[in-house]
């Protein structure tokens, strides 16, 4: 039984849970406010933003690529929603306008991802270059359309998404949980996920085996863009405003969260569950430092140091294998 659970969790999970326990224990001892309901609630509200963006980054990495456009894709999707809401009365916009705007935002996100994916699939250009170009395009376009400013003034009912709770849990956390479960199912059990892993290890051999490599690439970048759009919509409801550059600093943090969660930087391997635990570790670190009075920039610096430490530990022990993914 224990062996079966251990197999289902995979080799990285116990070590990551140990890290999480260590972080919680240290901050719990140092700060009296760390082990409080209020702090856990703030972690639960903050984590989904980084979490959804990390999921958007994760599948391209597993496929052997990268999506550098995630932040601006998310914000373009947020802007799309914002414009639809503004066109229908701004703060007085009805619920159907929100539904319409959400559809439009998801479409924009999927289109941005799909375009990157198509270029990667059909030209064979490197994903870093293609998504870098997409990132610059979206940033420039967004800044031109908003003149670099914010859009705000949305209907109050959006607070029920960004700040509300349902079933006793924060709504953003529920959205993240659903998204993570969908990703888990896709990578572990769906043919598309299977193809993503195989292409991540060796696209030529995958093609010789009869997999549709191009379709898989287009689809996976489309899904990455879709996940960005969900993140963008959530960010809009949480901050009640949208700006093109919002969350720029998170781009590389999502890459590191993937690596901390055991995703192989060269593609082909990586599971959702360890990545989710890695996100909790990063969020607990940042929240703990915040409670100790460190500012946000110092917290970012500590994230960086922490990740360097993890790489060194991995090397020293060499027992924390990258190359595992499924429990079954």
């Amino acid at each position, binding site marked *: 039984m224990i062996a079966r659970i251990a197999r289902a969790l995979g080799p990285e999970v116990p070590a990551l849970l140990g890290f999480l326990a260590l972080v919680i224990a240290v901050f719990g001892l140092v700060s009296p406010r760390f082990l409080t309901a209020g702090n856990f609630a703030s972690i639960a509200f903050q984590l989904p933003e980084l979490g959804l963006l990390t999921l958007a980054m994760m599948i391209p990495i597993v496929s052997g690529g990268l999506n550098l456009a995630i932040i601006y894709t998310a914000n373009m999707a947020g802007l799309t929603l914002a414009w639809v809401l503004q066109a229908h009365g701004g703060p007085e916009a009805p619920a159907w306008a929100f539904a319409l705007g959400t559809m439009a935002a998801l479409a924009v996100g999927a289109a941005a991802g799909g375009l990157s994916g198509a270029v990667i699939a059909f030209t064979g250009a490197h994903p870093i270059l293609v998504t870098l170009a997409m990132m610059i395009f979206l940033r420039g376009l967004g800044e031109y359309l908003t003149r670099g400013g914010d859009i705000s003034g949305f209907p109050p009912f959006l607070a029920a998404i960004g700040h509300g709770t349902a079933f006793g849990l924060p709504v953003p956390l529920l959205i993240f949980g659903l998204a993570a479960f969908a990703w888990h199912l896709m990578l572990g059990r*769906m043919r598309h996920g299977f193809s993503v892993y195989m292409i991540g*290890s060796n696209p030529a051999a995958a093609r010789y085996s009869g997999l*549709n490599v191009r379709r898989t690439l287009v689809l996976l970048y489309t899904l990455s863009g879709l996940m960005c759009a969900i993140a963008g919509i959530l960010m809009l409801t949480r901050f009640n405003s949208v700006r093109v550059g919002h969350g720029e600093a998170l781009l590389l943090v999502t890459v590191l969260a993937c690596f901390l969660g055991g995703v192989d930087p060269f593609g082909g391997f990586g599971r959702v569950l360890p990545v989710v635990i890695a996100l909790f570790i990063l969020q607990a670190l940042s929240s703990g430092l915040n409670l100790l009075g460190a500012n946000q920039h110092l917290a970012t610096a500590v994230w960086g140091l922490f990740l360097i430490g993890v790489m060194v530990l991995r090397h020293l022990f060499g027992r924390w294998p990258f190359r595992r993914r499924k429990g079954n």
Partner: protein
Amino acid sequence: MTDPAPPPAIALSRVSKTFGGVRALDDVAFEVRQGEVHCLAGENGCGKSTLIKIITGVYTPEPGAEIRYFGERMEAVTPEAARRAGIAVIWQDLALFPEMSVAENIAFETLLGPRPRLVRHARLRSVAEAALAELGVRLDLDARLRTLPIAERQIVAIARALTHEARVLFMDEPTSSLTQAETDRLLAIVRRLASRGVAVVFVSHRLAEGLDVAERVTVLRDGRLVGVHPTAGMTQSRLTELMTGKTFDAAVTARDLPGAPVVLEVRGLTRPGEFEDVSLTVRAGEVVGLTGLIGAGRTELCHALFGMTRPAAGSIRLLGREVRFRSNRDAVAAGIAYVPEDRLSLGLIQPQSIADNTVITVLPRISGPSGLISPALKDRLVAHWIAELAIKIGTPADAVSTLSGGNQQRVVLAKWLATEPKLLILDSPTVGVDVGARAGIFRIVRGLADRGLAILMVSDEVPEVYFNADRVLHMAGGRIVREYDPRAIALPVLEEAVYG
């Protein structure tokens, strides 16, 4: 022999080495004379590489071993000592710099030193030129290495070894990716080196070359010395027996299949620059061998039959119906399976698991009604094929790269047989597979044919198709030049016709 005989270039005795409980070498002796061409033969895992690494100081043997270089007893062999004694190894991967020029690759060590200094291009070129001249070869010194064919890269590697006065040269599988003409050129270079007093140790799977060029052969099996034999009077089949400890009865297995339905019928297939006007048929239960030199267009023809490229003219009929494939997925759906020549990078996805590599071609069949992959269906399918083809594995979750060449090739066969094909195309199915394991692969192939599968088997080793096919097609210059019945022709005649 006249006295005083020069001491042997390398003499080892009582060499043993254990890795984590596995006895890689057990009381092995090995001797190479000065200026001799020596063949080191044995199957994968027999200890050849370990022996070379002990000679070159990469590994330390267990106490009690005696190692002499040119008669001088070495207390501790280090890579530096081996280099000073003039012992060089050219590994199969060559270890060259693909983006650098030929001259830089040959002579880059003249640039090395304790302090930074400017590159002296003139000296670099003259050193490289001298090394190539010694080999009797002319190459463009300024060409980027990656633009050269493998055979010429190998010559560059040999020339590099000569720049630091190699007196014993180990060559690891030097001919495995060369054509016959390139091999002949390499063997000529080897003889030339030997005549200048450089001892060459040939480590090769391909037994014919070893016997052709070497004076003596040392055979290892399972880490033990089987024996040292003069190559005069030694035959390939005798050497195979020594290497594997088994006897293989090579006999022509060709049969007639008059009534069998035609599965594949190709008429006038053409793709300019690759192959011209190719016509052939393969019947159910028939093994058709396709042989010819590298560059004859064999693999290109396979790619077109598998839907990976589009022919410019001609027709392909499968079970009487004309087919046109837009991609290899169409070909798979129509019942064609293709085992590519390059198993390492195209046949399998090396880092992924044995299980995933087996089911990759049949994902819809292991999906449940929900469309999700069913772990139970997957496990059952994988277990079935592992048992069916007697694949030796640890667990199905292990990376396929952990398997030996022969077992990897069985996984490739499994993944394609799982698609229940009507036509199986095997492109050089025994490349990198041990002699002993080859027989196993051919037994499987024959068994599949007996059950009615049509098989097109490509190989540049004429004996393989001669002994294992029902008919042999000879391809040259993109055309099928002739068809042979193995029962009506002797092997040497066929080899002469193909290798010319």
